[in-house]
């Protein structure tokens, strides 16, 4: 038992060292850090300007009918802040092993005497820390530039929901790591998934708009959207933070979905990664890029 505990501590240390190393590597490219902290504002701003052009202010009655809240700017600021975690899962975690391949260090990393998931968790942890920094900078900057009105008293619970979403995204990150390890060049796939998620998840517009605009097809698109952890997380966080928000999913349902998504995505992600790793080890293709 004491041996088990010792192993667990060692695995935990492997994760923490991996996270520390990844953060150090990231901080060695300060321009990229500034880019990821500031650029999402450039992606959010066009939506806010478009909103101003279409409704002539920061409140929209039509938006209110669909979302409860008429304040489409706070709605979009919350959406884009949480979306930062999706981008991190796709472009950070998904690509982290690919970067080791580029650096020629993947083989050495995978023969180290620790569980490979300790390494993957370490990489995921570093991404979560950096992304939280980016999301906070983005939220504060966007609130200062465009104004946001939220219920600060519920912030603690909102953070808990975000943590749950991040755990579910870890599973998706593992899954993508496996796929990328197998197929190597992931640019096109990641770009497509990124754009698809941005379109079908309620980042800038309420979930009900999909059904309103696309009818029966919209209903199925909504169902697909709910499977992705970002959607229930956004519904729950907006219920907590956005005054008078009328969610499509009640907070209890959203949290249940998130817990289920966390379990399913983590299990599937780890399973798939194991399978792929074994397969490419047998082919001797770990270092090939």
């Amino acid at each position, binding site marked *: 038992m004491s041996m088990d505990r010792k192993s667990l501590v060692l695995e935990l240390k492997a994760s923490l060292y991996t996270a520390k190393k990844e953060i150090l590597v990231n901080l060695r490219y300060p321009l990229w850090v500034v*880019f990821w902290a500031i650029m999402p504002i450039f992606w959010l701003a066009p939506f806010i300007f*478009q909103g101003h*052009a*279409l*409704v002539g202010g920061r409140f929209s009655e*039509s938006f209110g009918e669909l979302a409860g809240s008429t304040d489409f700017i706070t709605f979009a600021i919350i959406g884009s802040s949480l979306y930062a975690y999706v981008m991190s899962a796709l472009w950070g975690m998904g690509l982290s092993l690919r970067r080791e391949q580029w650096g020629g260090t993947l083989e050495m990393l995978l023969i180290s005497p620790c569980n490979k998931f300790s390494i993957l968790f370490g990489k995921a942890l570093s991404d979560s820390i950096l992304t939280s920094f980016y999301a906070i900078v983005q939220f504060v900057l966007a609130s200062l530039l465009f104004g946001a009105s939220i219920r600060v008293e519920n912030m603690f619970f909102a953070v808990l929901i975000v943590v749950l979403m991040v755990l579910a995204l870890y599973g998706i990150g593992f899954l993508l790591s496996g796929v990328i390890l197998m197929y190597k060049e992931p640019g096109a*796939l990641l770009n497509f998934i990124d754009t698809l998620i941005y379109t079908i998840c309620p980042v800038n517009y309420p979930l009900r708009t999909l059904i*309103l*605009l696309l009818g029966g097809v919209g209903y199925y698109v909504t169902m697909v959207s709910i499977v992705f952890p970002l959607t229930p997380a956004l519904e729950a966080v907006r219920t907590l933070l956005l005054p008078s928000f009328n969610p499509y999913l009640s907070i209890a349902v959203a949290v249940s979905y998130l817990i289920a998504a966390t379990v399913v995505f983590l299990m599937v992600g780890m399973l798939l990664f194991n399978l792929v790793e074994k397969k490419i080890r047998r082919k001797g293709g770990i270092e090939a890029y």
Partner: protein
Amino acid sequence: MSLRDELRVVATVLKKELVLYFRYPVWVLFDALMPLLWVLSLVIYGRALVGSPYSANLARLTNTGDYVSFTIVGMIVSSFAYSTLWGMSYALRGEQWSGTLESTFLAPCNRFSILLGKAFSSMLTTAAWVALQITLVSIVFGLNINVLNLPAALLFFLIALPSFLGIGFSLAGVVLDFKEHNAFVNFLSSLLGLLLPISYPLSILPSVLRFFSYLLPPTYAIEGMRSILIMNSSLSELTNLVIPLVFFDCFWILVGVTVFVREERRVLKKGTLGYY
């Protein structure tokens, strides 16, 4: 080489780039689908905000309340602008990765014929996806543009094209020397996405941003083509847009050629042309 031979180089490079492009069908599929998703998200967002395909506020600002057509025309013109701006630099970067840039540049032809071939292939593929985009959007959401004005719109685009090519030459020169240009391209694309009047009129932008927007040739191209296709303006009514565009054409072609030639000389002297 004679002009005819140089034109053949342009056509051959164009063909080679197209053959290469279609060898990666997954990329082709994603290139076709992604602009549709971008349009879809903007249209869904518009519908959520105004509840119908018509915005009274947009009509007050621009004389058209049809935000679907307004946005689609903006996206189409910006797609062409982006493909011309990035097409050459991405293609040169591809040659660097493949290790073929040195041998390509050893060919006894003008460098700009090679660059133009690469730019036109990128524009041609963009044209195909834009046609798909227009067809699907017209069927699903209804696109109200005056098809009879298409030749005038094309002529307006041709007026803007030299300035796009000039900027493209400059970026291609930068890639020759600095190699890894992804961060730069990402930054510039995001900046253009904010400054160009794609889904909103210029009057919405704060005055500082509007000032920078007026320095960008694609701004005039979007405004002009939108006026022609949606508001039925004639070319003679758009002299306020044509004059700055002609100025930008001369300016950017001069800057583009100078930057490219200088950067090429620099990497040749450093011996780093084939590096990646």
